[in-house]
Every structure is written in structure tokens, then in C-alpha cells.
């Protein structure tokens, strides 16, 4: 944890009430792990160190999610709000829009968010 805090110092200037350090925090604030505050008297936004100490800078944003978000945003397959990604893919398939097969395998493979990126935010 100590090394992590050092990295934090390098990355972000320590300011009281600073908002810059929360710039990349996930908007879904996960419950902060108590480990994050051990041996550290610097105020840390909990989200950044919630993933077992690794920096959560990418905002639950991995490549797969990126691809799925591009699928969500593609207007050719219709609006994405209020429909699960798999349902939307199947609908596009039925309408003959030929959505890419990788999306289907990604969604059926699990470990990805099944709801569109606007789910719960709109």
C-alpha cells in the first residue's frame, strides 16, 4: 500500500478538496476497501484504489467494453436505451442489418455488461 501511495503522490498533487484527482473516478462508486486507507493519512478517493490496489484509471473500461460501447452508439442498429445489448443485437440480426458476430460472442461469453452504457444513468 505504501508504494501505491507514493505513486499516487507522483501522479496527483495532493490538494485539499481537489477535484482533479477524482477526474477518472468511476461514477458508480464501489464500496471503498478499508485496505486503501491503511497507513495513509492522505485523503484518497476510494474508487481509485478499490480494485485490489491497482489504479482504477480506466473507469471499468477495457477493450471489450469499448467495443460494446461502440456497438451501443451505432445508430444503424437503433436506440440502445431500454433494451439489453443482446436483445438489440438479436433484433438487428432479425432485421437483416448484419451486426458483427464478435459482439454476439462477446455478449454470450459473459463477464461483460449486458446492459447498454446508459443503463441506470438515464
Amino acid at each position, binding site marked *: 500500500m505504501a508504494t501505491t501511495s507514493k505513486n499516487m503522490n507522483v501522479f496527483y498533487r495532493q490538494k485539499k478538496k481537489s477535484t482533479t484527482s477524482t477526474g477518472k473516478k468511476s461514477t458508480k462508486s464501489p464500496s471503498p476497501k478499508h485496505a486503501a486507507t491503511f497507513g495513509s493519512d492522505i485523503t484518497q478517493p476510494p474508487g481509485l484504489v478499490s480494485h485490489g490496489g491497482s489504479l482504477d484509471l480506466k473507469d471499468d473500461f477495457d477493450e471489450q467494453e469499448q467495443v460494446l460501447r461502440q456497438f451501443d452508439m451505432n*445508430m*444503424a442498429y*437503433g*436506440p440502445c*436505451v*431500454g433494451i439489453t445489448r443482446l436483445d438489440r443485437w438479436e*433484433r438487428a440480426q432479425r*432485421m437483416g442489418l448484419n451486426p458483427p458476430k464478435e459482439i454476439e460472442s462477446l455478449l454470450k461469453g459473459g463477464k461483460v455488461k449486458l446492459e447498454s452504457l446508459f443503463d441506470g444513468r438515464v
Partner: protein
Amino acid sequence: MEVDSQEQLQRKQSTYLSLDENFEIQKEVYRGQQYSQIYFARLHMMRTLLYSLVPNWKSHLPVCTVLELKEGKECIIFGTLYKHMKLKPCILDEYSKERSVAPLIKPHNFMHQDDYLVLEDESGRVKLGGTKLSTSVYVTGVVVALHGKETSAGAFFVEDVLEAGLPPQIKRPLKSREDKYVVFVSGLSIGRSSSNPLQFQLLVDHITGHLGDEEEQGLAAEIVHLVIVGNSVEISRGLLNGQNLASKDQSRLCEPFKELDILLTQIAASLPLDIMPGSSDPANFALPQQPLNRCLFPGSTTYNTFRSCTNPHCFELDSIRFLGTSGQNIDDLTKYSEAKDKLDFLERTLRWRHLAPTAPNTLGCYPFTDRDPFLIDSCPDVYFVGNQEKYETCLLKGLEGQLVRLICIPRFCETGVAVVLNMRNLECHALTFGTQISS
């Protein structure tokens, strides 16, 4: 005088096929979706269709989306029309700061000369100009193809319009058929204080062959089907004000249904009957209305000739396709556009290939996600609408040889008129029941 010497008259029969599957919502699950999904489905289906019609219309012009429009470039765009109406009632009016004098009497028609049309597709929307597209004819929700160009003001000047036109019709051999009749009746409004039970009883007696001499009975034996097109009951407003009902009122609430059930049992014992829900019936408000619950008709449901159907209703009798609604779609068009008569509205919905284009904008509709059930894929032979002011009918001929009988069925409670259609030649006539005894 011999009474029972001749053999009994047999009623003619016809094969029935129900095509209401599209309008049933039992399998639908509501997951919080919005109406954008049904508009997307509608736009996609219609656009694919219109795209295939464009080569025959104007093959030399390029097709582009609304965002790709360039000033002065002539092209074809597809999209859904939206009509901005100044007088359309809007929930936000309640919150507006300027308390403009709201008219005390609601207008029956919300048209205004300042209304304008906008075309919208997935990429964007553009205001439409020019005189080719009449704002009094078109309503929100119609999908069309437009030929024109963008003006310097940013609007799209329309030079020509392409509608989908009448859908293709399956050819049915109409010759060498015998006379078989279908009777349509709507707006019975049982339970209304002004409804006359004798009128409907006369209709029932005529259809079941209890009236008239042999010749009349012979005519009645040729009636093969009865369709009741909505608004069969009317519950007095006083009972529905949200207060708890006393037991006396509860029995008053059920009376119209008991009366209707008795009459329907008489009919169901004699010939096949379809009953559709209407705006005043106890069915869901949003289209497509689901069939009236069988528990409302304890007597009639024991007969397998009794069928409770959806609104809109589509069925085939002896392979003649019938399609119709209880009137909500046409009534909504009357409020937001104008035409010289109701048959014009019927024709327009066929040309736009959509039963209720104003749904879900101003007409209640279920938020389907993957389809729009109101799209008309195949041209019906008979297209009817119930609960109208008067009986009107005409024969519509399409460009590809389609032939449709359009029927406006009047409210029986007010006019005493039922409509009879001959399946042999698609000819229609009115059957009027009067109960005034002239002095």
C-alpha cells in the same frame, strides 16, 4: 296451412382463420423501454420498402441521410414525418409561465395554419418547405421518401413525395362463389340511457332467423359471420369516479354486461361471432387492445362460435382477408388532419401502409421493441372502421390491381344501422332497424 312440412333451413358456413397473433401482447415484457424503439422498427421496415420503390420513381437521384444534406444538392431522403402543431395539447402547457388564454371549449381539430412538417431519421431532422407536402394531409408518424434539395435557410424544399402505396394483395378467385353475407355492427353502447334494447334484439332476431317468412329466413341463413366492432358497453361515468362502490352500484356496474351476454348467447348459438373491444369497453387503453376477458361473457363463451378478438382485428373468411379497427385510429387522424370524408382517412392509412400512424405520438400504444404491429404487409380485401357517424363505403382500386372494399360502420345505438357485406362480389348494403311506431 302446413307449417313444418318443408325441411329445415341450413345456415351456410365458411372457413375462418384468425390473424390476430401480431396484435397480442401476452409475450411482451416491459423492461422500461421508450417509444424510440417502435419508431426505429417502423422507420427501418418502411425505409427498406421505400428504397426498393425508388428505382421505379426517380432512379437517377442519389439517396442520402439528413445529416449528409448539402445546400443545393438534389437528392432523396427517407424519414419519419413529424408535424409541429401549435394547438396540440401539451402537458408542458400546465407549467408555462405565460398564462395565455386557453380556450374553454377544446377544439375537435387541432390544425392551425402555422403548422409545419419536419422529417426525421436516425441522423437528424430537417424542416420541410415547399407546397408539395400538404400539412393538412400528413400526420406525425408517416414514413415517406422525399425528393428535393436543401435551401440556404437550412430547410429542405420538397419537390416530390413518394408514399409506400397500397400493399400487394393476394389474388383470390371471386367468381363462382355463392352469396354469403357478413354483418358488421358497432357502437351498441349497452348501458347508455339512450340505447334501445329493442333495436339490438331486432337485429339478433333477424340474424338468427326468428323474423320474417321463409324468404327472409332464407336470406338470414346466408349470413355466415357477425363482427361486433367495439364499444359494446358503456358504463355510466358516475360509477367510475374513483370512489368505493356500494353494493347497489356494483350490481349496476355489471348490468350492461349481463344484458350483452344474454344477447350474445342468442347469437353465438346460431352463427360465429367476433367481438372487438373499443374505446368505451373494459379493455386496455393503449393499442393494440387485447381481447375482452371471457369471464365477462359467462353464457356466450360456452359456445365455440364466440370469439373475443383484439383491436385491430385481422381475419380471413373463405380466404377473403378482413382488417379493421374500432375507430380510435381514424378518430385520431380526424383530430390532427383533415379530409373530405372518413373514407379518405381509410384510404390514406392504406397508402401509408400503417393502421395508426399517430401512435404512439397522440394515440396510446404499447412500446414494442422489435416490431411495429400496425404495419400493413398485405392488402386486405375488406378494410373497415367502426363507431363512425354514418355509413359510408367505397371500392378502392390500386395500381397493381388491388381491390379493397372500404367500410365505415356507424354507431348502432345512434343510427340503428348495421352493415352487410356480400362475400361473393364485395358489395355492401345497410340494414336499418327502426323501432318508432308511426302513428
